[in-house]
């Protein structure tokens, strides 16, 4: 039974903590900056599009640039096969020029950027391509390969007496395929899984650490004794944790609201990008699980952070003391991040039932694969049970920790504290 006095105290502490964070300048500025960035990112393509359509109608990819703009590629051809002409026809962005000079001279010219590249063909199906700096998005190699390959096939087949029409018909034939996914498409879910996991990781850490710092501040500013002579320590811990959590949720809902609003305003621009639309057409259950796992993860870690904060005497020690907790949470984050490409993997499945990791790993599985409802239920049940147990232990540590100054207690002493009855 919660007594009326306790409830009143809890409410008072909750609203004091909540308002304290909400009115905090850093919190306000951070939230506003995030909102502005989101708004700018979502609006920029629309604005850019407006200017583009007015000024530069011709600047579309695929348009044949003038000869002077073409990239020059030197060709040393020892294959006995005529290839320069067909390359020039097939790849209109490049100008292939036959060269008779030796390879070293050519390399030199490529280095001096007189040529963009040098193509050396030793036989009909083998070539080397020399370029100065290779960029991963450069497709010249593949383009030349396919031209040469295509050309070789046509020539060979013609030599066999097959007519050109036949050859073209055969080579042009393609397989039409459709992938029909009955579960969830990882292509669609990948981006929002990534973003939401990042979000969960940052939010739980941020607000959990806020609890630790806040408790440690009350201790180091020696406010604690006066505070707990005015209200019960338990009410303080729960008021603080729920207050910070609600502040976090407020920020989350605010940022989500702004993102959605600006997406709607710019919807016509973004409709061309399925990856982005998938993010905003997120199913309602994903939204539900995001908030659920944020809250569960937050409570679990906030209790731990709160207990750790209560054991620290000086505010400078907070960061080092909470490091193990942060690492624990980071482990769950890393496992889920690594397994973004393999959400059905055994490791993720195991981790999705371990309470300290399940807020991220089960969440990943739910949004990227089809998880049986009983698995979700068990995972959440284990998590909730752990939260209750952690809350109980944290409350005991907190009660004793807040009045303990000087050297931090040893594990043995902590265990003794936990064993003592009220």
């Amino acid at each position, binding site marked *: 039974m919660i007594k009326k006095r306790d409830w009143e105290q809890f409410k008072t502490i909750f609203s004091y903590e909540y308002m304290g964070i909400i009115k905090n300048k850093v919190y306000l500025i951070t939230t506003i900056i995030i909102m502005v960035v989101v708004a700018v990112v979502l609006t920029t393509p629309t604005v850019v599009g407006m200017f583009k359509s007015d000024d530069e109608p011709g600047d579309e990819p695929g348009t044949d640039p003038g000869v002077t703009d073409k990239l020059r590629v030197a060709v040393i051809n020892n294959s006995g096969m005529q290839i320069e002409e067909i390359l020039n026809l097939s790849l209109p962005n490049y100008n292939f020029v036959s060269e008779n000079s030796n390879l070293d001279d050519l390399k030199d010219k490529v280095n001096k950027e007189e040529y963009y590249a040098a193509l050396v063909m030793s036989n009909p199906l083998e070539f080397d391509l020399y370029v100065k700096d290779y960029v991963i998005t450069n497709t010249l190699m593949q383009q030349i390969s396919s031209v040469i390959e295509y050309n070789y096939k046509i020539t060979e087949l013609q030599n066999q007496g097959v007519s050109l029409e036949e050859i073209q018909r055969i080579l042009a034939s393609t397989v039409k395929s459709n992938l029909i996914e009955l579960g969830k498409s990882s292509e669609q879910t990948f981006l929002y899984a990534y973003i939401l996991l990042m979000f969960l990781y940052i939010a739980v850490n941020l607000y959990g650490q806020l609890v630790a710092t806040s408790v440690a501040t009350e201790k180091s500013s020696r*406010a604690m*004794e*006066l505070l707990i002579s005015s209200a019960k320590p338990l009410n303080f811990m729960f008021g603080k944790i729920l207050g910070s959590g609600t502040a976090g949720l407020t920020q989350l809902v605010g940022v989500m609201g702004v993102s959605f609003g600006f997406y709607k305003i710019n919807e016509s621009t973004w409709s061309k990008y399925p990856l982005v639309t998938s993010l905003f057409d997120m199913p309602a259950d994903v939204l539900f699980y995001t908030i659920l796992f944020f809250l569960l993860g937050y409570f679990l870690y906030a209790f731990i952070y709160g207990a750790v904060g209560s054991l620290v005497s000086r505010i400078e020690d907070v960061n080092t003391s909470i490091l193990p907790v942060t690492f624990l949470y980071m482990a769950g984050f890393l496992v889920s991040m690594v397994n973004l490409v393999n959400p059905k993997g055994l490791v993720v499945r195991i981790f999705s039932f371990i309470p300290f990791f399940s807020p991220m790993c089960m969440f990943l599985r739910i949004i990227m694969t089809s998880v049986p409802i009983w698995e979700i239920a068990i995972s959440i049940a284990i998590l909730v049970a752990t939260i209750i147990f952690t809350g109980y232990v944290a409350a005991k540590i907190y009660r004793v920790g807040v*009045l303990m100054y000087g050297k931090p207690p040893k594990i043995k002493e902590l265990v003794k504290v936990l064993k003592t009855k009220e």
Partner: protein
Amino acid sequence: MTLEVKNVYKSFGTKEVLKDVSFSASSGSALGLLGRNGAGKTTIMRIIMRFFNADKGSILLDNKTFYPEHHSIGYLPEERGLYPKKPIGSQLIYLARLKGLSTKDAKTNTVKWLERLGLDDQFNKKLNTLSKGNQQKIQLAASLVNDPDIVILDEPFSGLDPVNAVLLKNIVKELVEDGKIVIFSSHQMNYVEELCDRIALLTLGTIVLHDSIFNIKKSYPNDNIFVSFTKPQNVASIKNFVGNYVMSFEAQKSGTNTENEAFSFIMKLKDDISKDALLRMFVDADYEIDDFHVIEPTLEEIFVDKAGDAI
């Protein structure tokens, strides 16, 4: 109401901090909790506040187990501090609300106590902009903002200038007059002597003295006599005059110009000699006596006597 600490024991690890500590304080009187540093004063206060429990013994209010949260209590901890970066007024209202006051009463009381302490213009200032002494006063306001029935003050005078000390003294007096139970610890013996009816003296975790100051002083031998005369007297002749009656004799040389004359004398009577006999002797010899009284030990002397040897 009577708050009673009964046979309390407390150990931290292997160190026994309190051994069979008992004392009591009643409404309308102040109890001074005295003791050297580390004697266990703060520990016993924290046990009364239930920050932790005693290993053995009990805290009773009118013979029933005392639960701090069921009563209106003002506690000024030894560790001073509040939220340094938050406005003073809002912090005090917050604390008053936590102590069970309605928002309206919390506001009224906050303003009342800030005015009483002369800090009413600091309502919207942040705590860390105040001087140390004023922060101390805010701390006091925080303990008293709920107009408590039981007031426990741990070293309330430390860090206050003489003017503020007088202000606090008057507040404590008012609290006693209003019928509150007041327990406070202090090393300023003059304040304790002035404010407290009773003291409890802790030495190494045990109560070595618990009584009214009046009784304690009475229990000390009253054989130290102060005599002063209207005219300066020759030291040698007075010494000769009282010779057989006193164990020790000391002339106070102030007020006279000559080495061998003095107005006043302090003498310690021999065991079988009464004060009356000494006084009668002076009167019979026609000495003009200005003042004749027993010198009581000061609280400080009693303190040093009882707690001085403890290490």
